[in-house]
């Protein structure tokens, strides 16, 4: 589904990714761990095509097509979706209008909002005065409406209380088709700091990103346990 080869990226001349290789087959979900500033969000933003992230070397291909230079909206239309870590507030634009933009399958926004306890926020301006949890929920519901084949989640659990975490978990389940096994068609790339998200997804592989490079690959739960026990420094040494 997604294949990244030797990806080098900079922002305003600062190198943020230094030769990343990554392959996510159809139906698999991979998890990215790493310290703040290690390049995790930059990788997701680059895959989505944000213009600040300049690809200096390497290639990104999606469903067999080279998308390295493709505009953001075309990538979205091909089936890539991103739930932002810190989405912008857009004054005057109602959340409902953005939901309508995302709605690719004519799903009822009301029903969806109702199911995820979001109805009151539909008429509000997008992210204006939203709490951290409300923003994350808004992001996930937008992705549910967009129904992408590659689901990228940038720290979906940060700033979310435990009660809402369950509701978000339900949304993530649905997005990544956790309930399916052999026939699962959705792929995922998820950034996590706290590891809570591992309880809500079927993660197939995990990576530790350090200083713009992938240092460690393995079973995501084991990796996370290792990080909890020994910190990220061990990952640098291990070079798995």
């Amino acid at each position, binding site marked *: 589904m997604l294949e990244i080869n030797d990806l080098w990226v900079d922002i305003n001349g600062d190198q943020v990714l230094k030769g990343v290789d990554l392959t996510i087959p159809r139906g698999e979900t991979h998890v990215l761990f790493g310290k703040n500033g290690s390049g995790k969000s930059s990788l997701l933003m680059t895959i*989505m*095509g*944000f*213009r*600040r992230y300049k690809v200096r070397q390497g290639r990104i291909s999606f469903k067999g097509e080279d998308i390295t230079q493709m*505009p*953001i*909206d075309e*990538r*979205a*239309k091909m089936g890539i*979706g*991103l739930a*932002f870590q810190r*989405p*912008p507030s*857009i*004054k*005057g*634009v*109602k959340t409902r*209008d*953005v939901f309508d*933009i*995302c709605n*690719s399958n004519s799903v009822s926004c009301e029903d969806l909002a109702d199911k995820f306890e979001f109805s009151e926020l539909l008429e509000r*301006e997008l992210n204006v005065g939203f709490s951290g949890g409300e923003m994350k929920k808004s992001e996930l519901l*937008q992705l549910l409406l*967009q129904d992408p084949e590659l689901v990228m989640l940038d720290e979906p659990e940060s700033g979310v209380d435990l009660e809402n975490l369950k509701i978000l978990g339900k949304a993530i389940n649905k997005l990544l088709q956790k309930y399916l096994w052999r026939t699962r068609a959705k792929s995922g790339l998820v950034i996590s700091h706290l590891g809570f998200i591992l309880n809500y997804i079927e993660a197939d592989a995990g990576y530790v990103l350090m200083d713009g490079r992938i240092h460690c690959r393995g079973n995501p739960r084991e990796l996370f346990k290792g990080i909890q026990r020994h910190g990220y420094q061990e990952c640098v040494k291990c070079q798995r």
Partner: protein
Amino acid sequence: MSEVRRNRAELARDKKATFGADVDLLQYQILAEDQTKALDLDNLTTEDREKIIQSGVDLEENNRAGTFLQTDHRIVHCAAKQPGLEVLPMAQALEEHPWLEELYWQAVPVDADKYTAQAELHFQNGYFIRALEGQQVATPVQACLYMKHESTAQNVHNIIIAEEGSELNIITGCATAPSLQSGLHIGISEFYVRRGAKLTFAMIHDWAKDVVVRPRSGIVVEEDGLFLSNYVSLKPVRSLQMYPTTRLTGPGAVARFHSILVAPPGCELDTGARVVLEAPHTRAEIISRTLTTGGVIKARGHLRGLEKDVKAHLECHGLILSDQGIIHAIPELEGHKAGVEMSHEAAVGKIAEEEIEYLMARGLTEEEATATIVRGFLNVQIEGLPPELQARVDLAIEESEKSML
């Protein structure tokens, strides 16, 4: 009295205005009074009808409590359909109500500048709209000042009164005939909101490329009165300058101004609102959204708090969509007593790239994303504005969106 006024106007005949480009009044012909040919709604041309409808006037007068329509210097239609409401041409109102002399030129000085002077010296009617004491005129009254004659000046004087405890809602559209290229519009508007009355006013301007516009407005709001103004100018106009002054004279008086301005290339808009909070517990809000696609905008605002326990806020947001455009926000706060609470917020810039890209990640093209953000930026919901007036404003924005981008 009228002689004193005339003399003051004579002395101000060449007095330049404080703001805005100076206009050579002699460039514009002043049409003489001509009552020989009566005008009415039936003998408007199809294109005039269309343009007038576009400016927000319902010619069938459905869902309107009254109508006033003036073309150049001639009254086309004037009617009040509800008891307790008066809609009259100004000349007739002055004849019928001798007391009106007391209010005439009270909220706007006759010698403020050459434009007020011209409106006095070459008076060409205008409207008088009044809700009588305690009358609730919830259905909007519509007024339209239409310019048709090439290179002429239209000098009108309007007075609007919401008497004690009344409610009055007005939609005004000012527009020009499609063939008209150049002209000068001078509009004096004096608003009197009496004790406990509510007056809402939505004005939509749709001028031609070479029209110069100099409205001069003054508003007086008494105790517990409420004045809401929503002003929209989205189409090209060569030069528009106005800076209405509102006096909140009684405790609990409230004024809110919302304006939405778009300046295409070649357009100069110098507008704002000034509110003087003269009594305790008065409140004011001035909010503007300005957008340039190549024109120049000066967005002014001035709040003067003269008494304690007053509360006021000023907000100017400007969006620059072209490097040729300029937006100059000039917010002023002036407090004279301890205990005034006044604030302002001004921001001028281009659309954040981050916002465009965010919407692109949801599948919109760059143009669609920009249009969505611009629409949101201009979408000012004015608290307390009747739905008919808000719908009219929303429609004006929607219609001009395509040409704007």
